[in-house]
Structure formats: structure tokens, C-alpha cells
């Protein structure tokens, strides 16, 4: 059948050659043959509720879909529903405790059965089952019930007024599973359903034909897809594994693949690949920020395990003169140029996106070594023994600067160490394997949560467009400690009563403008009071073949969100 479709597609494109040139992306489903996608991290499972890894969420997004998702500008668009519910159109109740979704009638699962509100309700029950270990359970935080008055209506009720009710069933992390398929996979049985987890039935443009975990997925067009003439491709080969360099090469230099995801490579390497002439890199910006976290506690190895990186303050990092000088000594423009090129921007903010939340009150794009030196001098940090390193309390100012292993991060470390040495602060560098650094093993001294160092560098972001819970990472009680098994998101152990109070106010405020105003104040507060040094606002850089049309890079949702609209140019 695939062959037949392809032949038909070929015949169709031959018959309508002039039209094909005029409007290449209209025509019969499956007319453009095969599309080949490469992700250098290989998907291990196609059920995003059981994994949460980006590779798994994005590969699954070609098969299963949410009710609404974010577009490339970060705006909500209706996907399986008629319109996005708002207070204005009555979809969200005036007291902000209820949201009503109206499913577009006539949508079918890929097996031909009807997509109904029961599936949506089932998805809620599936993910919130206490024994299931669902990775996306925070999407359903505060949900008290999901009701289905009829087959196309879903009513979600929250336990309190929720200014942003677009958590459940919105975005690539919260797609809808088919109730009929997963009915026997609830709770503790979830991991036993290998066939289901490897081949979910969905409403999306493609259907899994074969899934080899951590290797390759083959898919074909969904015959029951709701849009006529989509997807343009009859089949997909989704290869995983290797490294970013090889993926970029396969798209831009050898042309073996059509789309390569997340090419974290130095700009000159990307530029060299682009000379291959077979593909084009595209960049998009979400809220991802590469930053240096400043330890607000004392990481002295001489302290015992219950005190190290727990007791405040740090010997000298808490002094505004020190952390401001550290920040002034950094040339962020050069960092962008060396490390990220078109996929990076200078930022002084923790929350640089969405635009409404991007604070403009701070300036940091000019390096000022002299100013930083003067500031330290004035604050009484002087180099009394003439070894080029300033002293504090008679001890040289030496920072242990750790990060995960990654070529760009190691270049950043070298550069920043050099600049800090110019202001008389010595840095000892350490890089730690990412699977240890970002793993939460409380037994390991090298995790980023334990923060057994003075400063550490990594990147973080948030899902969707509302930073409320992300800003919550600066709350006093979120600081990791032995009592919490070193879990907790307040990595810098920043703690300020005013911040906690302001954040509480944010969670009660509705209206995007007011929220953005508070968000910016919170952002400024944590940066100016020594929580962190933001370095680079990082974009996502992917590459597509020059013969691919319809690719729109989306950083707010799955990158493959509009794969149904992709087509081959001139063919």
C-alpha cells in the first residue's frame, strides 16, 4: 500500500508539474516519499509519561498530540479542539477554577476509532496514578477532577484559582493516550506494556511501524489523519544515536538525512558544515539560559557532610562587590561568539523570554576589568603578597568552578578563568560527567544539587510560557540539604524574605501584564543579590535539508510539532 501511495504521489506530482512548482506543498497524502530525521540522542520509549526525556517527548509528538500546543512564537494554538478556552470566550470560568475544552468533532485515532473526551479523562487518570511514576504529573498539579459531560467536552477543575490553567493536555509533554489501548497499563503495570509503550495509537500524522529502542523508529503516514492531503511524506525514518557533529554532517554535508535536532556545536564548526551546501541551520530562542550559579553557602571540604554547602554564608561570595566584579569581568559578547554564534544572545537575566518577562533594567554587555578591579580594591580585597591573587581574611580568593563535560562549557571555563585571574581571583576548573553531575544520586559528591564548589555553570529553562514555578526555584525552602536528600531546585541556596513574599504575590496575581511586572522584579532581585551570573541566552539550533519545506523551528513545544506540514521542495 505504501508503494502504491508513493506511486500515486509520484504520478500526481508528474501530472501537476506547473502547479507543484507554484504551490509545492499541496497535494495528496504521502506524495513526497520518505523523510529522514536524526536525533543524536536516541529515543528509548514512545510514551512521554514514562520518560520525560526530550528525545522521547519529541519523537512521540509525531504520533500522539495534545489538545492545544504552543506555536513558534509561544502562543497557544488549538490543536484537537475548536478554540483555545479563555475567560473572554467563556472557556475558562470567571473565578479561574475551571477550564472547558471542546474537542473538534470527527477526529479519529489512527486505528479508525473515534477520539472522545473519555480518552482525555483516561490520560489524566493514567498519569496521576500514584504507582505509575508519571514524569509529567506536575502538568496535572492542582487538578481536582476531569469531567466529561459528553463525548466532545472536557471540563478540568482546579482546587484554587489558577491564572494559568493551560497545564493539563497542553504542549508536547502532555499528549492524549488512547483509553482502549492503555486500559490495562495503569499504575504498577505501566512498565509491562512494552507493545503499547513502543507503539502508541495516536491522532498525529504518523503511525509507528517499527520501534527499535535507542536506535531507530520507522513510521508511515496515518491514513485517518484529520487533515486532507497531510502529511506530505509517506514514511519517516527517525534515527537516533551518535553525536551532534555527525548528525549535522549527515544533513548539511552528505545529505543523508533531512532534519537534525539540537546541534550544540561551536559556530565555526556549524559554518564549516554549512559550506557543504546541502542543508541550513535554523535557530530559535526559548527561555534557556547558560548561567553561573553562586554558592550562597560554604562549600569548604573541611566542614562535615551535614554542614558543607548547607551553612551560610559563603566566606566572600556574598559580598556584592565580589559577585558584581565577577560578572563585570566577563565579556558576554565574546562568549556568544566563541560558543553559540547565531544560537546565542547576551543576557543579564535569568528569565529572558517570553519577551514580556524579559527585564531591561540591568546592563552587562560590556566587559569592565578596570571597574571590577576598582570595586574589589574599594571593598578592601587587596593583593597583599603580590602573587596576583587578592586575599580575603589572609587567604587567597580561590574559587572552585565546576560544570558538566561539554566542549563549549570547557571553552567558557577557560575564558572566564582567564578574565577572573585578571581581576585577581583564581579559579580551579573541574568538569564532571553529565550523567553524574545532573543525576540526583545523594551518595555522589559531584552532583549539581550538592554544589560542593564555589560556582558552577549549567543551563536551565522552563516549559510553556509561564515562569511562575521556575521563579519558585529561588525560594528559601527549595534549597537542597541533607534533610531533603539533597533534592531541591534552589541550587544557589539563595534566600531572601522579600523574594519569597513577592513570589507568593505572583501566584495570586492574574493578568499577563501584572504577572510580567512581578516576574521581572523577581528576576532582578535574584540576579542583583548574588544568586547567579546569567551568561548567555541560548537558542536551539537545528538543521534541515535544503530540499525540506514547511519546517518551522519551535522552542516552546516539540520541534516536530508541525511535521504534518513538512514537504519536499520541487519533488
Amino acid at each position, binding site marked *: 500500500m505504501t508503494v502504491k501511495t508513493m506511486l500515486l504521489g509520484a504520478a500526481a506530482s508528474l501530472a501537476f508539474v506547473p502547479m507543484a512548482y507554484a504551490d509545492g506543498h499541496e497535494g495528496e497524502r504521502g506524495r513526497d516519499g520518505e523523510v529522514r530525521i536524526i536525533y543524536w540522542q536516541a529515543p528509548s520509549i514512545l510514551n512521554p509519561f514514562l520518560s520525560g526525556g526530550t528525545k522521547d517527548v519529541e519523537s512521540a509528538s509525531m504520533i500522539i498530540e495534545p489538545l492545544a500546543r504552543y506555536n513558534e512564537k509561544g502562543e497557544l494554538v488549538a490543536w484537537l479542539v475548536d478554540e483555545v478556552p479563555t475567560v473572554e470566550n467563556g472557556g475558562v470560568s470567571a473565578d479561574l477554577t475551571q477550564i472547558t475544552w471542546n474537542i473538534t468533532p470527527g477526529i479519529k485515532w489512527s486505528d479508525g476509532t473515534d477520539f472522545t473526551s473519555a480518552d482525555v479523562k483516561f490520560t489524566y487518570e493514567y498519569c496521576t496514578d500514584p504507582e505509575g511514576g508519571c514524569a509529567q504529573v506536575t502538568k496535572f498539579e492542582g487538578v481536582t477532577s476531569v469531567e466529561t459531560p459528553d463525548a466532545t467536552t472536557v471540563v478540568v477543575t482546579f482546587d484554587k484559582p489558577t491564572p494559568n490553567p493551560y497545564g493539563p493536555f497542553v504542549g508536547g509533554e502532555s499528549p492524549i493516550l488512547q483509553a482502549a489501548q492503555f486500559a490495562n497499563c495503569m499504575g504498577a503495570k505501566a512498565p509491562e506494556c512494552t507493545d503499547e509503550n513502543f507503539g502508541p495509537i495516536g491522532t498525529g500524522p504518523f503511525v509507528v511501524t517499527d520501534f527499535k529502542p535507542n536506535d531507530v523508529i520507522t513510521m508511515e503516514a496515518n491514513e485517518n489523519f484529520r487533515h486532507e492531503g497531510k502529511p506530505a511524506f509517506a514514511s519517516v525514518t527517525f534515527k537516533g544515536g551518535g553525536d551532534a*557533529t555527525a548528525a549535522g554532517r549527515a544533513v548539511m554535508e552528505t545529505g543523508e538525512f533531512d532534519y537534525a535536532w539540537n546541534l550544540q*556545536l*561551536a559556530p*565555526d*564548526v556549524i559554518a*564549516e558544515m554549512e559550506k557543504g551546501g546541502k542543508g541550513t541551520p535554523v535557530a530559535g530562542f526559548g527561555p534557556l539560559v547558560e548561567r553561573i550559579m553562586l554558592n550562597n553557602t560554604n562549600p569548604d*571540604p573541611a566542614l562535615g557532610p551535614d554542614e558543607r554547602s548547607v551553612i551560610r554564608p559563603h566566606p566572600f561570595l556574598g559580598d556584592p562587590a565580589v559577585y558584581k566584579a565577577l560578572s563585570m569581568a566577563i*565579556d558576554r559578547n*565574546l562568549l556568544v*561568539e*566563541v560558543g553559540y554564534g547565531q544560537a546565542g544572545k547576551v543576557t543579564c537575566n535569568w528569565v529572558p523570554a517570553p519577551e514580556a518577562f524579559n527585564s531591561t533594567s540591568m546592563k552587562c554587555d560590556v*566587559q569592565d*576589568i578596570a571597574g571590577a578591579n576598582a570595586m574589589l580594591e574599594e571593598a578592601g580585597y587587596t593583593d597583599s603578597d603580590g602573587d596576583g591573587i587578592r586575599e580575603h581574611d589572609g587567604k587567597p580568593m580561590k574559587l572552585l568552578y565546576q560544570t*558538566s*563535560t561539554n*566542549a563549549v562549557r*570547557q*571553552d567558557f*571555563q*577557560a*575564558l572566564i*578563568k*582567564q578574565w577572573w585571574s*585578571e581581576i585577581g581571583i583564581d579559579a*580551579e*576548573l*573541574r*568538569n*564532571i*560527567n*553529565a550523567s*553524574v*553531575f545532573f543525576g540526583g544520586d545523594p*551518595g*555522589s*559528591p*559531584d552532583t549539581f544539587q550538592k554544589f560542593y564548589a564555589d560556582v558552577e555553570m549549567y543551563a536551565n529553562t522552563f516549559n510553556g510560557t509561564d515562569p511562575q514555578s521556575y521563579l519558585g526555584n529561588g525560594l528559601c525552602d527549595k534549597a537542597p540539604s541533607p534533610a531533603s536528600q539533597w533534592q531541591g531546585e534552589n541550587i544557589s541556596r539563595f534566600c531572601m524574605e522579600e523574594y519569597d513574599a513577592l513570589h507568593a504575590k505572583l501566584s495570586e496575581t492574574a493578568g499577563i501584564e501584572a504577572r510580567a511586572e512581578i516576574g521581572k522584579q523577581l528576576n532582578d532581585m535574584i540576579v542583583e543579590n548574588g544568586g547567579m551570573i546569567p551568561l548567555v541566552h541560548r537558542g536551539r539550533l537545528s538543521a534541515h535539508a535544503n530540499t525540506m519545506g514547511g519546517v518551522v523551528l519551535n522552542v516552546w513545544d516539540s520541534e516536530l510539532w508541525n511535521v504534518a506540514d513538512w514537504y519536499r521542495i520541487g519533488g
Partner: protein
Amino acid sequence: MTEASQQTAPDAQATRNQWWDVWDQFKTHSGAMVGLVVFLIIVFGVFIGPFIWTADPQAIPSVVDMIKTRDFRPIYTALWDPSAKVSWANPLGTDNLARDNLARLMSGGRVSIAVGLTAMVLSIVLGSLIGVLAGYFKRMDGPLMRLTDLFLALPLLPLILVASLLFREPLANMFGTEGGIFVLIVSLIGITSWMQTARIVRGDVLALKEREFVLAARSIGTSDRNMITRHVLPNVMSPIMVSATLGIASAIITESALSFLGFGFPPDFPTWGRLLNDSVDRMVSYPERVIWPGTLISLTVLSVNYMGDGLRDALDPRIRGR
């Protein structure tokens, strides 16, 4: 010549030990001499070189200079490409952060050669010891070979994770940050690479033990200790030499893999393996960045190989004096 000197000066025999014979034989081996010279040049270059070429391998110039002086090509590129960015201040060019490539090669070589040689010696000594004991003493064969099986089966990465979890801090306190990591890396590479040598040596000893000369030596009451040092060890030298040569190469490469994964030296600490690894992405635009470290690793291994060949021939009494 040796025989002549022994005949004419019997009293010199006491002062002239057998190592002089070995050296005399070694000198006549042209391959070994070339290897020795190349090896000495490399060692001299990386250990004494930095006193002559004093550029700092870790120094990055200030921002304005850095943009101007990064990504310089080696000076010889100008011969065929007049438009190439070159400078006499950096004969082998600079890297993407404007650090001097020559200084980095020298500094990297110090670490790589030190790691390669020490880890190799450790692994060879362990391997030969276990191999000889297992092969020679029947009672120890079973337990020692099962131990070898165990070590062969241990997955390297988790082992390294555990070792650096347990020993990194105590070693850093004892030997300083870099010294501690050096000891850790060298011992890790050493204790995870002796098994092949042990198996090979044991196999050879098993066969050797049944040879006529061993039986003869035993019949005149030679002690086990003398048996091993006089008769067994010299006859298993050649596989040991091969293991040693291959061991240096593996140690240098394993070190780079460890550093690459984040278990090795601090990131601003160049080694040959790491220089090679970091430059693979830019191999088309800046081939020199892979050619130099790659060539130096190969040259070191080749020179050790020829020295090993010469030493093996020199130690073999049947060839000596031929």
C-alpha cells in the same frame, strides 16, 4: 667482541655486568637506536622545551587580542596559502581561544608521556607477575586466572566512577589536585589493562615449563626464584615487549577518553589525546590540530616499539653476539 673481552680480561668480568653486553648489542640494532633518538627528542622536547619556548599553554590574551590572534594557522601554511592567518609568534598556530598550539603540545606531551609510561609499567609489572605466578605454580593458577576473568568482566566506566567517588578527594589531599588525578588515572589504567599480558605470559610459561632446558635446570636443583628470573622471564620477554608497546598507546588514548568523559584532568589541562579529541570537529579547516598530536602519539609508540625490538634482541642470548 664480548667473548673476546671476557677472554682477555677475566678480572673485568666482575665490574662488567651483563647489562653492558645488552647495551652493546642494543647499540648495533639500528632500528632501536633510531627509536631511542626519536624518543629522547620527544621527551627532551616536552620536558625541556617549555624552558626554551616559554609561552603559557593556558593563557588566553585579553579580549581584543584574542579575537585577532585566535585560529592562527601554522607558519608553514604560508608556503602554499599566502592568504593564511599566520604569525611567527605562534609557529604552530593558535587554537580557537588563541592559546599557543606549540606550548599546548609540549605541555600535553608531558602529561601524556608520563601517564602512558607509568600506566604501562604498572600494567606490565602486574600482568607479568600474575602471569608468571599462575603459569609456574600450579596451585596459584586457578585462583589467579579466575581473578583475571573477574577483572576482564568488570565494566570500565562504572569502575572509574566508583574509584573517583572513593579516592579522588583523599588522593587530591595527598598529592594535590593534579597529582591526585594523575595517581588515580595511572592506577586505574594500570589495574584495568594487565589482564591480557597476564593471560599471554601465563600461556607462554605453561609451555615453557615443559621445555627441556627448564627440566634440566630443575634437575640441578635451581630454586624457583632463580628459575623464574633466569630461565622463565627472559624467554617471555617478547610478548611482554609487545604488550608494553601497545600498552603505551592504549594508556594515552584511554586517558583522553577519561578526560573527555569528565573523569580526568581539569579541562584547562591539555594532553595529546585531549588535543586530538577536541580538534576532531575542526579537522577539515585546521588539519594541523589533529595531525600534530596524532603524529606525536604515533611517533612515541613507534619509537618505543623499536626500542622494545632492540631490547628484546639484546636480551636474547642466542642472538646476542651474532
